[in-house]
């Protein structure tokens, strides 16, 4: 598949799995076609807009892919994101210093993650049900706290987090890129995070290998909740107000991105790079449809089909491989 001499491609191939490699190729081709079709596509403003738009999903995806690899799932990240914003916003308006307001918001997120983790790991309740429940409960809680209204007029010392620029690029993009790079390194190279692959592939065997499964699970839910909190802070700061409805549906877009990026709901597979590429793909697709003047309603249809398509390709590949080994 890779031609001789295309050294760069081959070295890419060696550090990435099949899925990441395929996604990179698709993105390059897609980007190339778009740059020919639309003069706006490759401008700095457009690229920044794409990255800014996907920074929320990509940030949470770093934690979500880690969780999915261990066989977990979190449907409450959308509410957690809004919860963090509202808590921080209310604290700021009550005169709490910026740093402490932020810490309070993150603490709120951590609380959600801890509740999810303990219910899943210690009570052995299915993560789908636990986080479906916390998603609703947290959304309800934040509506009660904010009395159903957005928290407005946040101070400039806070909004700079989301609006400030370095080398002309908005902060949230740096935060996202840093988290992706760090997350990918940790998940690829540290013993602690590698434990997730063992847990997700065979929990019983992981316990045999001396892995503290319950603790790792709790930490996973805390990480993804904290990242949802970070995303919530960035989006609140960017808009200058804490919305009570923000983040609804985010959980599904994040999970979609990680699965397009090669993760599996049954655990044991996936990578941060893949999840990021999945989010990037969704972001570029949305942008492209926008630039091409396609009705925005098409976006969900196409993303949904691509999600299913990516998984179908996997299943077909797997089946062909199995048949090949069965014959030999």
């Amino acid at each position, binding site marked *: 598949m890779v031609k001789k001499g295309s050294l760069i491609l081959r070295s890419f191939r060696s550090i990435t799995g099949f899925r990441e490699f395929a996604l990179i190729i698709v993105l390059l081709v897609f980007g190339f076609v778009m740059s020919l079709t639309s003069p706006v596509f490759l401008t700095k403003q457009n690229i920044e807009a794409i990255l800014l738009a996907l920074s929320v999903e990509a940030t949470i995806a770093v934690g979500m892919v880690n969780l999915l690899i261990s066989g977990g799932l979190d449907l409450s990240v959308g509410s957690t994101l809004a919860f963090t914003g509202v808590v921080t916003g209310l604290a700021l308006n009550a005169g709490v210093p910026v740093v402490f307001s932020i810490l309070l918001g993150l603490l709120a997120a951590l609380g959600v993650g801890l509740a999810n983790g303990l219910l899943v790991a210690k009570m052995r309740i299915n993560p789908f049900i636990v986080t479906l429940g916390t998603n609703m409960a947290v959304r309800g809680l934040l509506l009660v706290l904010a009395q159903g209204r957005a928290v407005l007029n946040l101070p400039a010392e806070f909004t700079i987090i989301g609006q400030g620029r370095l080398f002309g690029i908005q902060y949230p993009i740096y935060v996202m890129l840093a988290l992706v790079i760090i997350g990918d390194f940790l998940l690829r190279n*540290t013993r602690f995070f*590698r434990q997730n692959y063992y847990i997700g*592939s065979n929990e019983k065997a992981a316990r*045999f290998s001396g892995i503290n499964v319950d603790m790792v699970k709790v930490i996973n839910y805390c990480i993804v909740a904290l990242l949802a909190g970070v995303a919530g802070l960035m989006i609140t700061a960017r808009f200058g107000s804490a919305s009570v409805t923000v983040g609804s549906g985010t959980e599904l877009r994040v999970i979609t991105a990680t699965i397009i990026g090669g993760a599996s709901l049954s655990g044991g597979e996936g990578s941060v790079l893949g999840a990021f590429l999945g989010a990037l793909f969704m972001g570029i697709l949305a942008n492209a449809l926008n630039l091409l003047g396609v009705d925005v309603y098409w976006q969900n249809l196409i993303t949904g089909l691509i999600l299913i398509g990516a998984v179908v390709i996997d299943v077909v590949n797997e089946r062909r491989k199995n048949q090949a080994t069965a014959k*030999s």
Partner: protein
Amino acid sequence: MEEVLRAEHLSKRFPGVLAVDDVSFSLDRGEILALVGENGAGKSTLSLMLSGIHKPDAGTIFLEGKPVVFNAPVDAIHAGIAIVFQELSLVGSLSVAENIFANRQPAGPGGIIRWDELHRQTSEFLRRFNLHLNPRQLVKQLSMGQQQILEILKAISINPKVLILDEPTSSLTESEANYLFENIRKLQKQGMSFIYITHKLSEVFQIADRVMVMRDGKHVGTRQVSEVTENDLIAMMVGRQITSLYGDAEKSRGEEYFRVEGFTQPGAFEDVSFGVRRGEILGFFGLIGAGRSELARAIIGMYPRQSGRIFLEEQEITIRNPRDAIRHGIAYLTEDRKGDGLFLSMSIRENLIAPSLPSFTTPQGLLDFRRVETFTENLTQAFAIVTPSLTKKVSNLSGGNQQKCLIAMWMGINPRVILFDEPTRGVDVGARAEIYHKLRELAHTGVGIVMISSDLPELIGMCDRIIVMHQGRITGELARGEFSEERIMTFAAGLHSQVSLEVNHG
């Protein structure tokens, strides 16, 4: 010989059953102790206690003379007792190296894995066992046999004093099994001790020094392998002498009434034709990859076929899916009763009526519970399924009783032909005799039975005729008088063609 492991008066009770009942035994350094017994005899529970998964209710385990208490599997591993289960515990998406050194990868500060060191150690380790694998290769790309071997090597890599192996050869080819035995002997010489749990008695004689027999949770006896015969072991396992495991074959056979013609699916089976007579038990033998299960599944429409016709009582019938097959009275009893035979989380009663649900429906479309009850109770009796109640989950039954359920549930469709894939896999000797007896009874009523099995003695004991397949083709057919293991194996290995057989006999 120096003693490495000793258990004294171990007992373990589960709700309603004393799984291990006052068991004591010892294991010497560098010894291979085979552990045999019927399903439910307590072998697994005993090994789970030794490896720290279950806590004994009473009794003590001594390791190198010192009493030990395991609160978690990790404790047992640290103390030097490792266990390898039948089921694989490998991570397909990780490399060979990361699987062997699961959670023990060499790491620098911050827990960052030193990949070069990991791969070097893995290569070195694999070389010790003459295994030519790339440490970087992903495990999901390996064959089942290679994965099984890797699973065992992974346990060996922590260098345990005692290694417990539970049916290690269940998915190995013969040469892979031999490779395993060679390495077990090598490690034995270096002082590693083994507890070898197996259903295959021939393996006991191939590999073990002593053999320990359990029955109903009790330690029945331990013998030097050189001083016992297979029949002695069976007698100890079942607690009685089984006079005739297979029963007596019927004398007369009816006419051919079921015929499969020209079944072909590239890569699975090629131009397969055969007929079944009324009341006949027809065996199918072949090695892994011979295509027997695929063929049987294709007959009932669960596996694709490119061409092929089916005749039942002179009429050609069309079978596109299992529903068609059931309508024509063709029952397929799967080789994988847990995977695709039984509804494990449902009750015995619900299982027994599953294939024949429509016949228990009132004209209004409701279930006729009274008829269901009588029917299932009669079946349970007829098949001697041992259970306190029919509302118990099938998953709670022993392997033998599950298998009896699997046969019983297909009686509801009044089968005219039964395709039985591995009738006694994982079934203990006592229940086997009962299953064989039941098959004979069914054949006596005029039902034709196609028996696919990898257990040669079973086929030779049961069948009127044996068809041998090799790589998707029929390579030989033997009538009852002509059976011999050598002959059947020759066909199965593809060393003879049908033609040369005719020359031999003609």
